[in-house]
């Protein structure tokens, strides 16, 4: 009966989940325009035709946002351990190994210090390509260290979120990172230093339910999926299809949960302007 149905999952399924591949030519996943690499870079990795924002990782965000050559990565040696000896269909250690070799990244977050229009900033950016940008002990620890460094150097803290939520393989320890990251933000607030949260596609679960939603100013990229529960879980719960645009940046702006939606090409100037205004009131 079902001989004509594909037994295995759609072979292209995972491609939309990852960050954009490096190549000379890239096809826009939204409007199918073929874009030359240089043109893509000039448009801060957005489609020149339809403004689709490609999912990019920390390396590209550093190029897009910070002063050229100013970024000094820190705590890259903080690596995931496997405290619970977690095994599902595969051991956690095997998943980590694969993520290291596929992404050449230290974990789902990259942190450090840099400058933005000459102003020193503490900077962090998540990597969705590393186990779905999931937050385990390493993400929490590096976030806290970056926050501390902001306080020590009296710098604002800029953090870019992209995450499916807490990392299941570290179970309750991952959950506690929500509290840990929120705690350092209270110290940053005591020091009256700006914390700017930039929310990108996608940001859900434990990351949205902690530091992503705690910015003094929260900026979203256009059409990013932002929410607590993922759309599939909600659809299963309410047994209805969700309306078009649900949980997208524009929906959050309308409901009052983000301050602004900013095109990636304008992000750098907006960030700089906001930070200078906020820091300008310091006495």
């Amino acid at each position, binding site marked *: 009966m079902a001989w004509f149905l594909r037994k295995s999952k759609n072979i292209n399924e995972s491609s939309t989940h990852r960050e954009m591949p490096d190549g000379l030519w890239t096809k826009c996943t939204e409007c199918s325009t073929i874009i030359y690499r240089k043109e893509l870079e000039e448009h801060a990795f957005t489609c020149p035709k339809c403004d689709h924002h490609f999912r990019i990782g920390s390396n590209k965000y550093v190029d897009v946002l910070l002063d050229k050559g100013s970024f000094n990565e820190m705590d890259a040696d903080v690596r995931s351990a496997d405290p*619970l000896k977690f095994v*599902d269909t595969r051991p956690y250690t095997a998943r980590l190994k694969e993520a290291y070799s596929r992404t050449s990244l230290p974990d789902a977050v990259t942190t450090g210090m840099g400058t933005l229009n000459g102003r020193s900033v503490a900077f962090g950016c998540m990597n969705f390509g590393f186990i779905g940008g999931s937050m385990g002990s390493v993400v929490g*620890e590096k976030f806290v260290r970056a926050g501390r460094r902001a306080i020590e150097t009296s710098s604002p803290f800029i953090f870019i979120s992209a995450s499916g939520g807490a990392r299941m393989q570290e*179970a309750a320890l991952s959950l506690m990172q929500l509290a840990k990251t929120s705690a350092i933000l209270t110290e940053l607030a005591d020091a009256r230093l700006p914390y700017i949260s930039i929310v990108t596609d996608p940001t859900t679960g434990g990351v949205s339910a902690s530091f992503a939603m705690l910015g003094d100013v929260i900026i979203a990229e256009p059409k990013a999926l*932002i929410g607590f529960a993922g759309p599939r879980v909600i659809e299963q719960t309410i047994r209805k299809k969700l309306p078009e645009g649900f949980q997208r940046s524009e929906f959050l702006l309308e409901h009052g949960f983000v301050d602004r939606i900013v095109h990636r090409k304008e992000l750098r100037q907006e960030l700089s302007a906001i930070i200078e205004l906020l820091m300008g009131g310091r006495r």
Partner: protein
Amino acid sequence: MATNTTLDFEKPIVELEQKIAEMRSLADALDIQPQIEELEAQVEILRANVYRELTRWQRVQIARHPDRPYTLDYLTHCFDDFIELHGDRAYRDDPAIVGGLATLDGSPVIVIGHQKGRDTKSNLRRNFGMPNPEGYRKAYRLLSMAEKFGIPVMCFLDTPGAYPGLEAEERGQAEAIARNLFLMAQLKTPIIITVIGEGASGGALGIGVGDRILMLENAWYSVIAPESCSSILWRSWEYKEQAAEALKLTAPDLQSVGVIDRIVNEPVGGAHRSPVAMFNTLRAVLTEELKDLSAVPIESLVHNRREKFYAMGVWAG
């Protein structure tokens, strides 16, 4: 009120108990009192053995037992003068989180907890203990009030998770939880957390940041429920037992990685078998913990609380 639900692994115990009951009904006619007593002793040994070697999934089942005491049971039995306060002052009252004023051993406290229902009707009202944003915002209001009046806070965690609904997203479920974490990390009054049943994910942690984290012996606490973990990592709902093992979600597991501070023993057979004993134990533990925390100056308290959470996590390098 009791549903007399029997969990699978309790069946041998229940069968033996039924046998004893039968023998009792015949005891007037026959001289079998010694045999009855022997069987009763056997039941206790059996129960102790079964409960000593519970698997993680079995504990999850006990944590979800329909007769298990819920937050309001503790609020009315461990505390005196409980006065419930309602509403988030913005949208509505969320019955999935309850809270108010009470006294513990004569001292005022503010109490907050997730609340499940006992039957279909009350479960619909309380949304099976799954809060909406207004529940967390009610808690926020009560937490702020506790700080204002210098009253300690006691939170009771028992939720299958924050509600993953359409309206919950519209009203900012993530923001509501995040703001509570931010507040609780710096609240200038003692906070004692007790995981009494299910501690599922951000929905539990949303009222779960404190100076002392206690956990009942058969409660569970993790980033996700075992069934959901199974469906994501194994792509099937069938691996809940394995998921429960992998998640290491029991009180002893969590104490060993520093997520909780203290395990509160339950009566043999679980809190639901002897609620009064459970209330007495928890009242004594909370009183003792509160006494210890009340001696700490507020600045050190907040400092220690932040340091406690900074220390959570395991990494290399």
